[in-house]
């Protein structure tokens, strides 16, 4: 699994570099240019930009599901802003306190080093020009953002500043934060603000959350932004369906991890199949996240299905469909006792020049509603501590 994840992450980074430079994969006819050309997540301003170390996705979450003892599938790639790592760390901390004896009896690989590893990984991605110990900071949209706790937690654990847009200015060609002693330049910014809101001078001018001019400093090589702007295209579910080709094209190897079979509704014959079999399929929005805008055929009402059919016909290119997988379950402790629930697993991957570090653990997400397949935390999913046990 680790090797498969590494292979996939390497391919994703190579893909991003390629589509923002020569687009060889399109010229070779391996993916249609419409996948990129009509893609809202494609960021033209990144064309020709070479991020420090050539790394676009510094932090990746590859979501995995299991349908049999040795049968794993990649459900989704999260290269834009994978979240949930704070839950992983807090869950382990809680378990260590509540059941220390379990950790004496089992050799469980640690995850508590993640913040240190993250800081080291981010520091290694600093632009060459900056000397000394790189200054890392976390950019948060602020206290009203639903993931604020994680932003503050990670900044605190890494020992770096947590900043908001209005703490930052362009000073002497660098992005700098306003400290009590003056403006201090930042080398690496781990940003949890979406692309559109990152820079009101270059992107959405209404944004109050970003830093005017940061894209200019970035393009001039004065700062590393993690994850790089424009990586959202790798999260795209239609691109997901091409991942096997993408892995092969950039690594020359067959993918070690399998993709879930996916129908692209942008293609007429595939759309026809999907419309015919809506009751059995899971249909997702291409740019969706958080489990919103999905249809789960087997558990949906006739009314939901009819409504979704209309949406599909109106904007077919906006959707992909997958078979309903019988996801594995694990027991949870509910009021009535032990009872099974469906889960997925999100291992976190840190990427720096010359190193791809898959955390020995990850976040198991639980669909708390009995029989539900929706595990996302924003929709009331739960989480579990996850152990990688040494033999």
């Amino acid at each position, binding site marked *: 699994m680790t090797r498969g994840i590494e292979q996939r992450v390497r391919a994703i980074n190579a893909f991003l570099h390629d589509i923002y430079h020569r687009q060889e994969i399109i010229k070779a006819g391996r993916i249609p240019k419409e996948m990129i050309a009509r893609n809202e997540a494609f960021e033209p301003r990144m064309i020709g930009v070479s991020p420090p170390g050539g790394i676009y996705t510094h932090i990746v979450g590859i979501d995995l599901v299991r349908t049999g003892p040795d049968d794993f599938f990649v459900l989704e790639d999260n290269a834009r802003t994978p979240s949930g790592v704070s839950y992983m760390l807090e869950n382990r901390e809680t378990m260590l306190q509540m059941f220390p004896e379990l950790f004496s009896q089992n050799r469980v690989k640690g995850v508590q080093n993640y913040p240190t590893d993250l800081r080291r990984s981010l520091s290694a991605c600093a632009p060459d020009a900056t000397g000394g110990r790189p200054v890392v900071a976390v950019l948060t949209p602020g*206290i009203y953002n639903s993931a604020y706790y994680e932003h*503050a937690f990670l*900044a*605190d654990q890494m020992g770096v*500043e*947590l*900043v*908001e847009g*209005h*703490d930052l200015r362009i000073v002497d060609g660098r992005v700098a*934060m*306003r*400290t*009590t002693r*003056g403006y201090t330049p930042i080398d690496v910014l781990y940003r949890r603000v979406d692309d559109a809101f990152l820079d009101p001078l270059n992107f959405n001018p209404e944004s109050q959350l970003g830093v005017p001019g940061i894209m200019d400093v970035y393009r001039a090589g004065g700062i590393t932004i993690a994850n790089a702007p424009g990586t959202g295209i790798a999260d795209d579910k239609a691109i997901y369906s091409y991942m096997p080709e993408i892995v092969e094209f950039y690594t020359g190897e067959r993918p070690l991890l399998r993709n879930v079979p996916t129908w692209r509704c942008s293609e007429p014959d595939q759309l026809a199949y999907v419309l015919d079999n809506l009751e059995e399929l899971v249909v997702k929005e291409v740019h969706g996240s958080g489990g919103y805008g999905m249809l789960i055929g087997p558990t949906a009402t006739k009314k939901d299905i009819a409504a979704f059919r209309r949406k599909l016909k109106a904007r077919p290119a906006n959707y992909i469909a997958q078979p309903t997988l019988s996801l594995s379950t694990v027991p949870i402790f509910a009021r009535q006792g032990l009872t099974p629930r469906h889960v997925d697993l999100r291992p976190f991957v840190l990427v720096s020049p010359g190193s791809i570090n898959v955390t020995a653990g990850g976040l198991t997400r639980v669909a708390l509603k009995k029989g539900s397949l929706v595990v996302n935390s924003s929709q009331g999913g739960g989480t579990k501590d996850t152990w990688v046990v040494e033999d």
Partner: protein
Amino acid sequence: MLGKTANGLFWMYRSLERAENTARLIETGQRIALTRLELGDSEWRSVLESAGSLGHFEAVHDELTKGAAIDWLLRDRDNPSSVLSSIETARQNARLVRTALTHEVWEATNAAYMSARELLARKVVERDLPGVLGAMRQSASLVRGMTHGTMLRNDIYNFARLGTFIERADNTARILDVKYYVLLPSASAVGTSLDNVQWETILRSVSARGGFRMEYGAGAGSREIAHFLILDKRMPRSLAFCLRKIRDNLGYLNNGQMRPGPAQNKALHIERTYLSHDIDAVFDYGLHEYIQTVLGLLAGLSGQIETDFRFYE
């Protein structure tokens, strides 16, 4: 640290100090109202003035009654300086700067907040008032205790202290500003007596009645009270004590610099020019004018701190 963080710490501790001082003002007002029947509701006017809140109160209320004044000062959210508002502000700022605080300080602040929300959810009946006010003061002092006991003596601590002492100096000066006329030499009756109700009010407002009596004895009068509140360096709520602390903390923040920063200079100026002489010099200057001047300089000092340390920009 970020200018924004220094701002959060400064205001967290200013708000905590304000909550405590306001609770104390209510306590004093209540005590006087219960024991000095001749005063009626008029004393509450002075209390509102000391809290810097009279104008706002009058804009919102038709009549000044004890009940209305207490409720306004204690729990009205339209009053940004009420005990409840101040504790909520303190907690909001603590949340913003949480990673700069120790676990204990955060927990104590959060506990003060939860206690205030519960106890002040409804209008407090007279019977419960002493208990509620006592609880408020106790929660606030727990935060102070945790701060002293667990916080590293670094920049974070210095900004916290600055917030506390700027607010405290302002509070003492305001109390004096409202009551200055009872301390004037011309107003004091021949044959001093601590039974003078207004002196008692002033001393209770700064939790100093026992301490004062112990230090100055039964024969002390308005001159000694003025000295106690303005110049006595051992009295933790006096202007001199507060300015000394402010000056010290600015000095620590300025550590390593050859010359004092602008805020430091302002603090030094107040100390040297207004707090380094004896009380007779203050009365010669004119007590009322003196306090007005010092209040203005304190506001200027607070603004200078915001500028020097880039709270905004």
